[in-house]
């Protein structure tokens, strides 16, 4: 039986809501339909708190706080969309666009990309920083999937889903700082990895076009970020809902009128 959770009254953007004890600002906001943009957060996975897109202002605190990793406290007053936050989010998105090689026009995730969507929401119509244009070879050695690090924002959703949900821990982050990048096993091509179970959860969880199915053309990649939350809920509550749409294979969806 689900336990009864204590309610905590907080205010988000002048709306009073009853959050649950132990819940983050982001979780509470989403339950009440208040949109706070995020990137590295994925319901069902551990909190990473690194993209800093979900920063909000909490009354009494000088520094903005990540909504995904800040637990609600009685009488907390949160603002999610001040001019300062909008400006910070836009700058962070510019940093991400300048860091990799995000060429939306030729991307499998064009039109289905969280990074692209966040940029639109943030009003980012250009990037003021110099593009870094790193050289990052694509790994297409896996029979079923492709990893294009040019589009990777190191949100580690794939690392976490592979470790926490699938239990294979194929992925991890190697190096550090601006050289931090994803690796499978000891950095050999993904296709040679013996621990990959071909489950596709990493592809489903990827917010951008960094992970996709072999054979996907521009705009064809479909992610299913809610797959993880559904899996976690199913395991916890032993209630299995049929997926609303196919969570994995985009090929089955090619007939869709998009």
């Amino acid at each position, binding site marked *: 039986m689900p336990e009864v959770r204590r309610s905590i009254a907080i205010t988000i953007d002048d709306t009073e809501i009853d959050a649950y004890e132990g819940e983050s600002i982001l979780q509470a906001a989403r339950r009440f339909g208040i949109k706070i943009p995020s990137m590295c957060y994925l319901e069902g996975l551990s909190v990473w708190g690194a993209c800093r897109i979900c920063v909000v202002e909490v009354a009494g605190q000088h520094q903005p706080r990540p909504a995904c990793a800040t637990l609600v406290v009685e009488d907390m007053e949160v603002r999610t969309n001040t001019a300062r936050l909008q400006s910070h989010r836009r700058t962070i998105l510019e940093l991400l666009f300048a860091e990799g090689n995000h060429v939306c026009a030729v991307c499998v995730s064009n039109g289905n990309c969280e990074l692209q969507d966040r940029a639109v929401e943030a009003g980012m119509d250009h990037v003021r920083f110099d593009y870094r244009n790193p050289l990052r070879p694509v790994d297409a050695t896996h029979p079923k999937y492709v990893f294009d690090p040019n589009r990777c924002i190191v949100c580690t959703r794939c690392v976490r889903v592979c*470790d926490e949900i699938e239990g294979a*821990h*194929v*992925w*991890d*982050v*190697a*190096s*550090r700082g601006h050289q931090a990048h994803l*690796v*499978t*096993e*000891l*950095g*050999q091509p993904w296709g040679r990895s013996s*621990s990959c179970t071909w489950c596709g959860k990493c592809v489903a969880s990827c917010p951008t076009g960094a992970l996709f199915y072999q054979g996907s053309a521009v705009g064809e990649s479909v992610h299913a970020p809610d797959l993880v939350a559904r899996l976690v809920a199913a395991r916890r509550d032993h209630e299995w809902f049929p997926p609303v749409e196919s969570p994995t294979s985009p090929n089955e969806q090619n007939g869709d009128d998009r």
Partner: protein
Amino acid sequence: MAEALHPSGDDRFAVLDKHLKRTHHAQDQLIETLHVAQEVFGYLSDDILMYVARALLLPPSMVLGVATFYHLFNFEAQGEHACSVCTGTACFVKGADAIVAAVRDGYAVAPGATSEDGFLTLRTARCLGSCGLAPVVVIDGNVAGHQDARSTLELIRAQARIPEEVN
């Protein structure tokens, strides 16, 4: 009783195994284990990383992730000689850049890399804590203070001669 030989016949594994045994194959000893492995083998090859991963029951990608996070681990064979130039603040103020440039040009070796002939590995070091003697270089483990480009190149040459004299 002597430690059992590694199946490969490479008795350096015995040293690593001894460390693993002493630390009860504890996963939190990963960094120490990598230190020992590097000391024994000179650098961390894929085989060694896989060996450590298996010994500590850790995913290989996690071992690689940890090893590559820290600056002091090498993944390639190192040069016969090593020259580390301190680029801490005091050494920076006193002109460490010129020393790095001189060694780089003199031995055609980029900082962090080994010259093609395997003679010299050039490194830049975060503060060595000898700021009173800035700029400081370390050649094959010997610290030398108050250096400039010329004296550093001379020290490397002198170091290179030592084995000849011994022979």
